[in-house]
């Protein structure tokens, strides 16, 4: 078996992983990043909108500051975030954006003079200042008081990731792509590296490291319908959970976006509705005003997703071979508007659906989009439970998003957290030495080898891996989707436990040789079901509605009992996760209050006498 040794092992080579890697490499340490795909194909490249930082350069961003950004972030989180972390994030975001500019990101810049923009379908005028010419500009995004989202046309994630990877190449960061981490190596106290399968040859490898970082992005692919890349299946969270000592934070906080296209669940931007698009049902009836007379399609993401789901449950969805959906109508906006302001949407419709949105309706449905939960870390990015284990990016619960992250805050998080956590990793590497017990390493590797053998020889059964995975999808979509309630969640937990049992009986139908994809899924699926159980069990216990977590049977946000973060660990062999709770924040710069959107009753933390 091949063994590699390095100072820092980054599991994940998206923006978060590479940003941490760069910090350590710049300080002279050996760094190896692992990735399922070439680094530049990581999901970070798919973000188009942009990333938030309070630079305040553009006219509509005037008067912006980290304080305003902080307030938006805390409100957006529905007071579920760690305020110390949110503060760190907002203060450092401008530095991170400027650094990216120095490294080569072609940010769009301020062009002085008058120009027009749309709001709520209406035309307005603004004027950019001469003295700001050439500074990084920004665009509007949901939930922000100012225009704060820095962007490069419609390819922000792409340009930032390519720049980051360029920097990594320059500093000699090693990336091993087409590999998959299957387990961490640890002694219950220290993390020592990982057992990894090569997705080119199928062989197992061992990576030993003084520091291991989990930066594997989101786990959207435990849901059938997700805007996430097909590789976002929670690999990093699974290996953390499987240690039995590292907790995952707030796994029940899962964000759904109203307009993923059917069938492929590719995202079409909120801008469609912002610019006047409407949602129609199977009778081509515009239904949102029936539920939300004031805001209609422009209510917040969670609210619109919820009503869409409700409406389809009434039997008013459009049936299709891919399940029910609704229509998004932007025909009335006109060709001119579509070709300029909604260019991407126009392209997505033509490329993936073969329809022209100026003439045809777009099939859409709410789709899993972002995972606020992840490996719980402290403000330095150090994971709870094991020494030498860090986490950053969407895989981490650092936790500045609480129960709902704002658009533009997650891409910014990857680089800001990467910068901050990277510096802490460097400190840690300077202070800590480890030794690697060979017996322990052999055991971890043998364990994975054994799983592979049993799957190929069907030693434990003949369950079809795709059938079992579909059973997980069905259970989650039904019980732990957009709307949740005690009865459905209980059924969901129960079903998922049965599905979990079945994952132990999977046998391969193919021969499992080489880079076999059936084997890869069979190795990953039991862990994915455990993640699903963390989501469902966490949601079942949380008897309130906060941010994206909406309980029909507990519609109020309950600050009295639930101003806490869920911590899920999994004891080896246990049927369910163990749930513990900690206060969401140690510091309260802003006391819990109204979010200003979404409505709903709040049970206050200290009821007034």
């Amino acid at each position, binding site marked *: 078996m091949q063994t590699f040794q390095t100072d820092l092992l980054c599991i994940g080579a998206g923006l978060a992983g590479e940003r941490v890697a760069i910090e350590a490499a710049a300080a002279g340490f050996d760094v190896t990043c692992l990735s399922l*795909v*070439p680094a*530049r*194909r990581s*999901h970070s*490249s*798919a973000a188009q909108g942009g990333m938030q930082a309070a630079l305040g350069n553009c006219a509509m961003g005037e008067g912006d500051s980290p304080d305003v950004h902080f307030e938006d972030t805390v409100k957006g989180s529905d007071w579920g975030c760690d305020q110390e972390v949110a503060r760190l994030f907002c203060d450092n975001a401008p530095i991170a*954006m*400027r*650094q990216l*500019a*120095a*490294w*080569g990101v*072609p*940010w*769009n*810049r301020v*062009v002085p003079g008058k120009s027009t923009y749309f709001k709520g379908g209406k035309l307005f005028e603004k004027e950019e200042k001469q003295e700001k*010419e*050439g*500074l990084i500009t920004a665009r509007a995004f949901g939930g922000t008081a100012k225009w704060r989202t820095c962007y*490069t*046309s419609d*390819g922000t994630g*792409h340009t930032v990731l*390519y720049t980051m*990877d*360029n*920097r990594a*190449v*320059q500093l000699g960061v090693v*990336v091993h*792509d*087409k590999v998959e981490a299957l387990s961490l190596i640890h002694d219950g106290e220290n993390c020592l590296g990982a057992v990894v399968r090569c*997705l*080119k*040859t*199928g062989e197992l490898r061992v990576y030993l490291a003084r520091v291991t970082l989990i930066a594997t992005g989101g786990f959207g692919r435990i849901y059938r319908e997700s805007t996430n*890349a*097909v*590789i976002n299946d929670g690999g990093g969270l699974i290996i953390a959970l499987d240690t039995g000592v590292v907790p995952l934070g707030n796994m029940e906080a899962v964000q759904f976006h109203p307009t993923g296209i059917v*069938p*492929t669940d*590719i*995202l079409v931007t909120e801008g469609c509705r912002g610019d006047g698009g409407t949602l129609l049902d199977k009778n081509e009836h515009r239904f949102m005003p029936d539920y939300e007379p004031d805001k209609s399609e422009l209510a917040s993401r969670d609210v619109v997703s919820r009503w869409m789901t409700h409406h389809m449950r009434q039997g008013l969805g459009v049936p*299709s*071979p891919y399940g029910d959906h609704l229509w998004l109508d932007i025909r009335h906006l006109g060709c001119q508007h579509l070709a300029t302001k909604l260019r991407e949407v126009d392209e*997505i419709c033509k490329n*993936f*659906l*073969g329809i022209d949105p100026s003439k045809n309706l777009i099939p859409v449905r709410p789709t899993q989009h972002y995972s606020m939960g992840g490996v719980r870390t402290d403000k330095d990015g150090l994971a709870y439970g094991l020494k030498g284990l860090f986490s950053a990016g969407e895989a981490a619960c650092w936790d500045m998003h609480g129960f709902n992250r704002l658009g533009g805050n997650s891409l910014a998080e990857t680089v800001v957290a990467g910068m901050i956590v990277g510096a802490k990793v460097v400190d840690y590497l300077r202070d800590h030495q480890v030794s690697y017990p060979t017996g322990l390493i052999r055991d971890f590797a043998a364990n994975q080898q054994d799983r592979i053998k049993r799957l190929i020889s069907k030693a434990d059964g003949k369950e079809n891996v795709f059938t079992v995975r579909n059973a997980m999808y069905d259970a989650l979509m039904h019980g732990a989707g957009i709307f949740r309630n005690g009865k459905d969640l209980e059924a969901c937990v129960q079903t998922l436990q049965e599905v979990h049992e079945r994952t132990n009986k999977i046998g391969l*139908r*193919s*021969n499992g*040789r*080489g*880079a076999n*994809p*059936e084997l890869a899924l069979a190795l990953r699926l039991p862990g994915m079901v455990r993640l699903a159980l963390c989501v469902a069990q966490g949601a079942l216990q949380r008897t309130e509605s906060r941010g994206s977590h909406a309980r029909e049977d507990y519609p109020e946000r309950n600050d009295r009992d639930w101003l806490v973060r869920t911590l899920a660990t999994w004891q080896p062999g246990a049927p369910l996760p163990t749930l513990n709770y900690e206060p969401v924040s140690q510091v309260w710069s802003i006391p819990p209050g109204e979010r200003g959107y979404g409505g709903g009753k709040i049970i206050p933390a200290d009821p007034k006498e």
Partner: protein
Amino acid sequence: MARNLTFSIFRYNPQDPVSVPHTDTFVLDETNHMTLFIALNRIREEQDPGLQFDFCCRAGICGACAMVVNGRPGLACHTKTKDLPDAITLMPLPFFTLVGDLSVDTGTWFRNMAQRVRSWVHTDKEFDPKALEERMDNAVAEEIYELERCIECGCCVAACGTAIMRPDFLGAAGLNRLARFVLDPRDKRTEQDYFDIVGNDQGIFGCMGLLACEDVCPKHLPLQDQLGMLRWKMGWAGIMNLLPWKRK
């Protein structure tokens, strides 16, 4: 009416001693809005769980799913079956190392390319976290972005006659990458520095200018213009090079 589609797919698993290169046939009923992403996944789930292919974003942004569809390199995720005849032949991209079936290793090649063209901004300026960002003209930023839209899918290299003959050829993607930095005012490399990288047959002088690359680029990058610009600039740099008194 719904068609039955017949897929002829190249099969070979280099890790399996009993595997030999051959073609397998799969039949599938076509559904509305079906793409090759949907079709291949259904074939894997319903008919052959060992079938290897790559998808990642499945939205035309990551470049993972390039393959040869009925003889032409392109992205499988945004290829709709309704635009294809009912007989569909799928082959892996040539030129890159085969991982298995339709999956190839583009990562190694592109990483190597990044190292060869030294794909980063060359500057001796230190980043100052307290200073404002350096200003840049928005039009310049947008021009750089136009060239930076390459998704490293490998279609252009796979379609390139020179690349097939010279495995060390930088390809349109590599030359385009360099052009991106030539354009970038932050990059302080001189023309001579660029010439040292591409002023040879592995670079710009190997290109036969036959346009296959631009034809297949799924992002419609202006590859010909960039190749032309580099050839012109590098031609000049080459002449300067011959005149010792002009050398810096």
